[in-house]
């Protein structure tokens, strides 16, 4: 046991590695140890669908040395799952029995896929919940014998996995309980263009359906039974039903959890020298101020950097994040959803504009003076300026016309 360890980071993904990088920038000499339960060295998790599609190799996804992750002497222990934390002794115990002391510790253990218990057979060979690089490897292997795959859940992660499989020539059916895909990111009406693009790309989508049972034969998955009694023969099932924070290792530690790990505005937990960041942390939404949890790389990096600065002695307020802050492109249709975008029964001023190849919904507060949310589909130009306006709660009266017509540019903000 090396109690001289100044910084221990539990979790080697976005939040953990961003924190390690931030600490290293402030403190070139400090000892930094990252404990990752995965066998792989830290990697860009959002890229794993590319391993399934075959477009990238694992080596192309490694974090160290890429982008801002250039800090030296960050010790990463792989296969190092933390089993317990003793906040009085300031030690952690690994599942294999090793112990490690810490000066300051960051909990950035992320989340794991949620497997709905009402679906029978989620443990069958060929059933996946794509989360880790290892999941992706196994999924790629299974894809070799898969002619048809069923995706359960219409979220972004499942859509990306679906397209990875489509690229491999596999027939893919998406089973969505909600009335429309991407229901977490937008109202059904906002998703029409994306839905059309998905349909045109060859994805089969069944909305309003739920899986009851996954069936097996000698080679693993052979079919999915739906709640309407129908069955879809398939060789692979991918479950995308949300995630749950990894907090079990904190049982008995005294670190306060409530859904996730509760952190204050300086990313600190209730025990001395403990911090939390990323998917596992409960943060708050800047517009409403209410507590939320997100599972987004970008948010995790931001909070992780903030935690790293706080740990390194630079008090830094974490300004929170939108529960919804997504940009991506599926089926050649780029879109951005951010801030308050579910507007049914919402007291808000809403401007929608639809054309053949673009859609936008801009959500203002009830007084119409502040932008609170935006969905941009097709044309996402200058989305970052909207994000800035939402986040800073700027009075947008002077540029509202430009926002509504999607003509806003930074020059307008300089001129007002």
């Amino acid at each position, binding site marked *: 046991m090396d109690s001289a360890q100044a910084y221990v980071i539990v979790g080697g993904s976005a939040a953990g590695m961003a924190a390690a990088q931030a600490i290293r920038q402030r403190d070139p000499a400090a000892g930094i140890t990252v404990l990752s339960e995965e066998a792989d060295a830290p990697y860009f998790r959002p890229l794993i669908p590319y391993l399934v599609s075959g477009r990238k190799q694992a080596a192309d996804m490694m974090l160290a040395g890429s982008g801002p992750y250039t800090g030296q002497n960050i010790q990463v222990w792989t296969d190092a799952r933390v089993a317990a934390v003793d906040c009085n002794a300031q030690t952690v115990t690994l599942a294999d029995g090793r112990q490690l002391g810490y000066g300051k510790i960051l909990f950035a253990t992320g989340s794991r896929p949620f497997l709905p218990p009402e679906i029978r057979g989620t443990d069958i060979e060929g059933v996946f919940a794509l989360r880790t690089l290892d999941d992706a490897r196994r999924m790629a292997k299974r894809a070799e014998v898969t002619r048809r795959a069923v995706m359960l859940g219409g979220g972004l992660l499942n859509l990306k996995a679906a397209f990875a499989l489509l690229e491999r020539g596999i027939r893919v059916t998406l089973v969505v309980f909600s009335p429309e895909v991407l229901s977490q990111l937008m109202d059904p009406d906002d998703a029409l263009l994306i839905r059309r693009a998905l349909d045109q790309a060859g994805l089969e989508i069944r909305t309003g359906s739920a899986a009851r049972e996954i069936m097996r034969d000698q080679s693993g998955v052979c079919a999915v039974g739906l709640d309407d009694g129908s069955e879809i023969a398939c060789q692979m099932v991918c479950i995308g039903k949300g995630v749950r924070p990894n907090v079990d290792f904190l049982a008995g530690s005294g670190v306060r959890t409530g859904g996730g790990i509760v952190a204050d505005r300086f990313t600190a937990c209730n025990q001395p020298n403990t911090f939390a960041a990323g998917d596992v942390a409960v943060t708050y939404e800047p517009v409403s101020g209410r507590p939320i949890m997100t599972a987004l790389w970008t948010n995790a990096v931001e909070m992780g950097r903030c935690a790293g600065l706080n740990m390194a002695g630079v008090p830094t307020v974490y300004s929170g994040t939108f529960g919804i802050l997504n*940009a991506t492109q599926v089926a050649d249709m780029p879109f*951005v959803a951010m801030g308050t975008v579910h507007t049914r029964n919402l007291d808000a001023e809403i401007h929608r504009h639809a054309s053949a190849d673009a859609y936008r919904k801009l959500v203002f507060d009830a007084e119409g003076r502040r932008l609170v949310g935006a969905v941009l589909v097709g044309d996402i130009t*200058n989305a970052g*300026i909207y994000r800035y306006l939402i986040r800073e709660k700027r009075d947008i009266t002077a540029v509202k016309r430009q926002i509504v017509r999607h003509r806003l*540019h*930074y020059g307008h903000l300089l*001129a007002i």
Partner: protein
Amino acid sequence: MTQPKEIFAITDRCVGCRTCTIACAVAHSASKTLFGAVAETPRPKSRIYVEWAPPAHKIPLVCRHCEDAPCMHACISGAIRRTDDGVVVTDADKCIGCWTCVMVCPYGMIGRDLERHKAYRCDRCPDRDIPACVAACPTGALVYQTVPAYAADVRRHASSEMVKGKGS
């Protein structure tokens, strides 16, 4: 390390001719010539923008290579890094076209190359002594200076304007 130079815009000097945008696109073309560039497919793209805001502002806008570049940290594929010269660059090989950088840039300075499905932005012309836009600006609205040198110029200009003002 010497202080890196940056591109500054003197907005009251901009006449809105967009010569900078042409020079930028040509500098990022394969042929590096205007007549060659207009024949290339896909067309080379300018990384500098000249916008208009009422009542009559002409505003050149270009990537500021922010110190804490939000795009770099937000990138989900590790494609954006800062060079030793302080230039924030996008590695097209690593870019997967997810547009997260577009979503977080508060200045709207990241373009989307739809043909290549890659994000692009000002790279401050690494092969040139002076960025193409600055070299091309016919009115001196764009300057390439270190921060202290530019600040000194602005102070000098302001004081000479004051002297002129008194004399009139």
